[in-house]
């Protein structure tokens, strides 16, 4: 036990260092380079004389810094949600979007892009995230209602997964239909949003994501032991005192908040929630008490790196980050599928 525990502590420590390093990297590199010295100056100045910032310092404070923080927070949400979903579905290759949350959010967002203008909404910063969240909640609830067994009112994991696939298909084809209808500027927004981008990160959105993600993690931490028990199956977990129905409901709610809020601000980013917990399990085992925290750190690291690639690969143009995560995530997913010790 001590051996494992110290390995876990060491792992968390290494991940934290990695996160700090990648965070600094993502502050320094981009359309313009900012040195560590500039960063120090900018931070010093905003504390002493906030109205005398130079252009570079303004870019750092208003664009670079919130974007870097957004990467960490979104990466943490998606990876944390991956841990929760995989534990809940007892399946190591489940993705947070699987129960319909992100496709529903994408649907809400495209509906807003297409109809928003013609309905003459007074658009504010809030309208898009709210539309996405509503979409996410609707699709997830639909999956839950439809997966419920008529006879005993319970929803089995298999029926949830299959219903999730069906609902995802419906919502994604609706998104496709909207992009077909949309005229050029809207269609471009839909496409970019569906592929994910952190270019719109503001202090405003970062603050909201940070608060909701932190609250979700604090809540989820209380259930990690029960999620461990659930790995043996619902019956066994029940025999060691877990209230299965309550656990399922709470974890689902936490997951919807994590995914919908992140998706609302940065669009659909896939594979982070799948790959991060898996990488950690390879070397640290499956104790969810460790995985939840470690995934948040590693998710932050990987998404920050992916965003760096997205910014630098075609500079000065920008690649949607979802393309980067998919390019890395898909091969990883295939390797996982082919590994013999994962089964259903």
């Amino acid at each position, binding site marked *: *036990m001590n051996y494992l525990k110290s390995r876990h502590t060491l792992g968390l420590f290494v991940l934290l260092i990695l996160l700090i390093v990648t965070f600094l990297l993502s502050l320094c590199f981009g359309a313009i380079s900012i040195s560590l010295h500039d960063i120090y100056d900018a931070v010093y100045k905003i504390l002493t004389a906030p109205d005398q910032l130079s252009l570079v310092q303004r870019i750092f404070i208003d664009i670079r810094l919130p974007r870097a923080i957004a990467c960490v927070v979104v990466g943490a949400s998606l990876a944390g949600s991956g841990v929760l979903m995989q534990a809940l579905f*007892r399946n190591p290759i489940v993705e947070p979007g699987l129960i319909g949350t992100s496709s529903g959010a994408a649907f809400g967002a495209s509906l807003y892009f297409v109809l928003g203008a013609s309905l003459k909404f007074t658009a504010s910063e809030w309208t898009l995230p709210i539309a996405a969240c509503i979409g996410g909640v609707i699709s997830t609830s639909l999956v839950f209602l439809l997966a419920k067994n008529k006879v005993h009112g319970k929803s089995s994991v298999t029926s949830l997964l299959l219903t999730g696939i069906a609902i995802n298909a419906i919502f994604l084809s609706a998104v496709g239909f909207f992009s077909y209808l949309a005229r050029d500027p809207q269609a471009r927004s839909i496409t970019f949003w569906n592929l994910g981008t952190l270019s719109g990160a503001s202090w405003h959105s970062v603050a909201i994501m940070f608060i909701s993600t932190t609250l979700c993690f604090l809540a989820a931490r209380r259930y990690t032991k029960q999620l461990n028990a659930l790995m*043996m*199956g619902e019956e066994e977990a029940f*025999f060691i005192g877990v209230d299965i129905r309550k656990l399922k409901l709470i974890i689902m709610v936490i997951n919807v908040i994590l995914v919908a809020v992140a998706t609302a601000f940065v669009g659909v980013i896939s594979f982070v929630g799948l790959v991060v917990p898996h990488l950690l*399990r390879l070397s640290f085992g499956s104790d969810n008490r460790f995985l939840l925290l470690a995934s948040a750190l590693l998710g932050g690291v990987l998404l920050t790196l992916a965003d760096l690639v997205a910014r630098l690969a075609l500079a000065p143009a920008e690649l949607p980050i979802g393309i980067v995560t998919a390019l890395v995530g898909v091969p990883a997913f295939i390797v996982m599928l082919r590994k013999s010790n994962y*089964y259903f």
Partner: protein
Amino acid sequence: MISVENITVSIGSKPLLENVSVEFEPGKLNLIIGPNGAGKSTLIKVISKQLVPKTGTVCFGKSDLQSISHSNLSVIRAVLSQNIDLAFPLTVREVVMMGRYPHFTEKPGKKDEDAIEHAMKFFDVWEMADRNYMSLSGGEKQRVHFARVLAQIWFPVPDNYRYLILDEPLTFLDVYYQYQFMNKIRELLQREDLVMVGVVHDLNLAARFADQIVLLHQGKVVVAGEKEKVLTIENIKQVYQLEPKIHTSENIMHLLF
């Protein structure tokens, strides 16, 4: 002790158990036998509170089972079921520690560490404590789960019985481990506060190790009591439609079909 009184369970119009009443006493090995579809699993589900019967009561000691909360129940009662699947890499020690989950909130204490060590040593899995559970053979996995359920109720509970419910525990074990496991179970029965109820298929194992046998057929108790009373040629012929020959040598009954 466990007292089951007038239990009836049905799915739709098909009765799975009809007016079943039995008692399981502490310090004895109580085994439930019967052909497929006799209602053995249903009876186990009722006493492990997975199924709430339409009529009748189940009492653990003096308390009605339905009035005991999940968390209180999981401290005094452990259940070993068949076919446990784990698709995640975990060490054997982590799996056994899950048996202690009802006893601690954040981190396991000294008592929990002691319990899993004793339970793992008892079922010979202590040497594989740090191995990956997924790399074990079927029989080894089964022994890890024996250790887990034993760890769950390792320490006596003041003013209460402890309950161990075994649903076909021998499924994945070869003959050697079947006998070894049954011998260990008998060893556990020296704790007089332990109420043990199990389902087995093998009548010879029941004949050799049980103190009390309940013979079920078509959802009803055919006969319950000492093995000499239950395992008679007439009873077995009536229930299994096969006529056995019964040999007794060195006080052990052998059934030949």
